[in-house]
């Protein structure tokens, strides 16, 4: 008997049929399936998600790629400020570069947060951080489309402080 599939439905009605282990990369979906008492599915299941189809497609792509990978469990005792970012694979770099080019980088991160896919969230945040590194404030604003909401007076005051960073 073929294993039942999980159908993920995007907010715009697009459907993605995946294996249960792929869907369960998301702790949220896994919890929902367990909560509903359908662990070891006997019938196909459909799960609606508040995520756009093109974004969900990328998330599914990531989950498919890592469906057999075991990620280390987060250490609750780890001190956040002393933690190290996850190591990005070549595949991750390529994946997020494409996402960025398609204006979906932040959507992927938001979706990872929403679906509780920790590894995808961490890798996404690391990618953004890596893109920021070595850039000036103006370059960061331009790269990530961040509006400058400082008044001229405020900006002047900040730049006076900023001289110490030079």
């Amino acid at each position: 008997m073929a294993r039942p599939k999980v159908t993920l439905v995007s907010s715009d009605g697009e459907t993605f049929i995946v294996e249960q282990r792929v869907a369960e990369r998301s702790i949220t979906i896994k919890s929902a399936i367990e909560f509903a008492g359908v662990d070891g599915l006997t019938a196909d299941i459909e799960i609606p998600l508040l995520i756009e189809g093109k974004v969900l497609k990328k998330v599914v792509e990531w989950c498919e790629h890592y469906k057999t990978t075991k990620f280390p469990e987060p250490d609750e005792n780890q001190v956040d400020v002393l933690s190290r970012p996850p190591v990005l694979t070549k595949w991750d770099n390529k994946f997020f570069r494409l996402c960025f080019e398609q204006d979906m980088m932040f959507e992927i991160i938001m979706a990872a947060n929403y679906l509780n896919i920790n590894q995808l969230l961490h890798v996404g945040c690391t990618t953004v951080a890596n893109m920021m590194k070595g850039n000036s404030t103006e370059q960061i604003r331009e790269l990530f489309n961040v509006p400058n909401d400082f008044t001229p007076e405020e900006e002047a005051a900040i730049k006076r402080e900023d001289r110490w960073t030079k």
Partner: protein
Amino acid sequence: MIRLVCNKFCSFIAEIWSRNDAKSTTACVNSSLQAPKLITSLEFLPDEILVEIIDYLNQFDVLALCLANSRFHSLCMNKLFKRVLFINPQWHQILHCRKLNTLTNTNYTILNKFEGIPWDKFKFCMGEEFDTDIYQEGHDYYVRIDDYKEPIHPTDQFNQISYQLLWISLRDISQAYIDRIKNTKIIGLFKKVACSLVDTTVEILDQLQGTFVKVKSLILDEIYAKHKDTCYKNR
């Protein structure tokens, strides 16, 4: 916060399932719920995600991001202050306290540690509000903790430190490490200095010598243990 969102979603899914025939295992979405619009700016990410991104930045990049706009300024300042919070009272003792106006806090107290920094440099850092009573111009004089009768512990005001002062503190202490490490056993030195500045310093040193990564991992627990005591005992 992340978990809260997920729990809400789980409840939402569970509620949907409870209203439907379990056999069909098909859930329906409330049509009033709409997916958010496409996010094209970093600014639209929630604070908890931005904080995680900031966690992965080194001190220099945090300072650059800090100036992007007021929201990032606030988030980055919190991050910087958390690092400053770990300053070890046994190292370059807390020294200075004064009031300033800034964008985010008006008329607040600044504390910092500048022991060992030449007065000329110190005065320049402090600007016009510098307390000239204890400044001895023309002397080859260095800042000393004894010059202040009632130094305040930084943890009392940790979220109110000007980042320009923070920066110079980091820079000088980092330089002090770099200078000393040339002639000192690395691990022994770092174990004496249980402060977050080690974290910052090691980041800098990481770029100079790969070996410091190993050093860092050896002392993390000790730093954290000391930090906890240091931070809260004087509150």
